[in-house]
């Protein structure tokens, strides 16, 4: 068997492979650091979001989706953190069970919902505390490669350019 043009092909293959692997080599085989949402002083002071933190981390999108459905479709504009959360049949059984396991295993010390009533609004209620969209929302969303289209319509709070 004759290997034609080996002088060109072999170095080419090696260079190609190096280029392909360069991002992995550059990062030393480690994953990039996951960003942690940054809390504003106001959010820190409040201590408690509309639901416990692990819940919000995992399911804020479902919560927002439910809010949108309830506000727009059913005209229900207030959210009671005790009554309206997961134990009130808002989610299907599977999600409920997942959530139960989640809260009992990973972070049982998280304080429960406060029972306070909130106005269901991303733009008014959420962004009042989390007024730092670029640090609180975008960093994580960019890291995970998700691009929610909330801000096509909803007005984001003005942030001080640092």
């Amino acid at each position, binding site marked *: 068997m004759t290997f034609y043009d080996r002088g060109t092909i072999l170095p080419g293959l090696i260079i190609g492979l190096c280029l392909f692997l360069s991002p992995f080599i550059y990062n030393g085989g480690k994953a990039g650091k996951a960003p942690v949402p940054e809390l504003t002083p106001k959010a820190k002071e409040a201590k408690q979001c509309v639901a416990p933190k692990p819940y919000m981390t995992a399911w804020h999108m479902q919560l927002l989706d439910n809010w949108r459905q309830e506000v*727009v479709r059913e*005209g229900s504009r207030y959210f009671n953190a005790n009554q309206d959360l997961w134990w009130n049949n808002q989610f299907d059984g599977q999600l409920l069970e997942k959530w139960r396991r989640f809260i009992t295993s990973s972070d049982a010390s998280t304080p429960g919902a406060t029972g306070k009533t909130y106005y269901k609004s991303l*733009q*008014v209620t959420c962004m009042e505390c989390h007024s730092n969209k670029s640090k609180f929302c975008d960093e994580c969303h960019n890291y995970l490669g998700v691009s929610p*289209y909330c801000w096509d319509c909803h*007005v984001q709070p003005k942030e001080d350019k640092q």
Partner: protein
Amino acid sequence: MTVDRRKFLKIAGLSAAFGLGGKTAVDIFAPGELFASAGSAVPVATNQKKWAMVIDMKKCLEEQEKGKCNQCMAACHRVHNVPNFGDNIKEEMKWIWQESYEHLFPSQHNEFISEDVKEKPFIALCNHCENPPCCRVCPTKSTWRREDGVVMMDLHRCIGCRFCMAACPFGSRSFNWGDPRKAPKELNPDFPTNMNYPTRTKGVVEKCNFCDERLGVGKIPVCVETCQNINVHALIFGDLNDPASEIRKLLHSRYSIRRKTELGTEPKVYYLI
């Protein structure tokens, strides 16, 4: 087997009778409600509100003649982040707007009509019809009539097909041909003007929502509130199901007209002339 003419006719007759007796016959002779008119069959609870508006055009025109009043429109557009596209009619966003009497009431117009109304700028907004054609044609159910009578829009779901615009006989719906945030800056300083209300995105239809976001927290529509605040009281908002409400009393005591009632959409915006 041979079938003679007589036997064949018997069988055919019996089959036809059997066929007609089935579901087909019911459908042919006693058709159920057509899908197109199904919109009106909404059960009304005893304490169900039915929001409606009365526009006292006498007071409104008086105020307009005094000083070009446009407070209701300005307030609505400010609160709902409705952009101004200037003279470009194609891109005009209509939530509440002015239109001549002839255009609003084409069937009521005649050449000898009173000077009190002739070519006078009337106020128009979405009629929040009881039998809204826009809702019947919407393929994504992104517009529908709520039980309290408000014809709502779910802008998250609108795909911008503009069927509703074609269906609405009142021209109450507008399409976002471009991003409303890119409206001319000189006409829209500090847009969005209300940081507590969303704007729209390119490619959705929008219209007056009877201030659903204010009704939800126990307030009246902002146009009505503004009209009251400047002490004109030309716009009156209330519950049609409540016999003691101001609008019911007004409708009882004064003669009112509505737009294009012959179309059967049952508008809920009443005009006192």
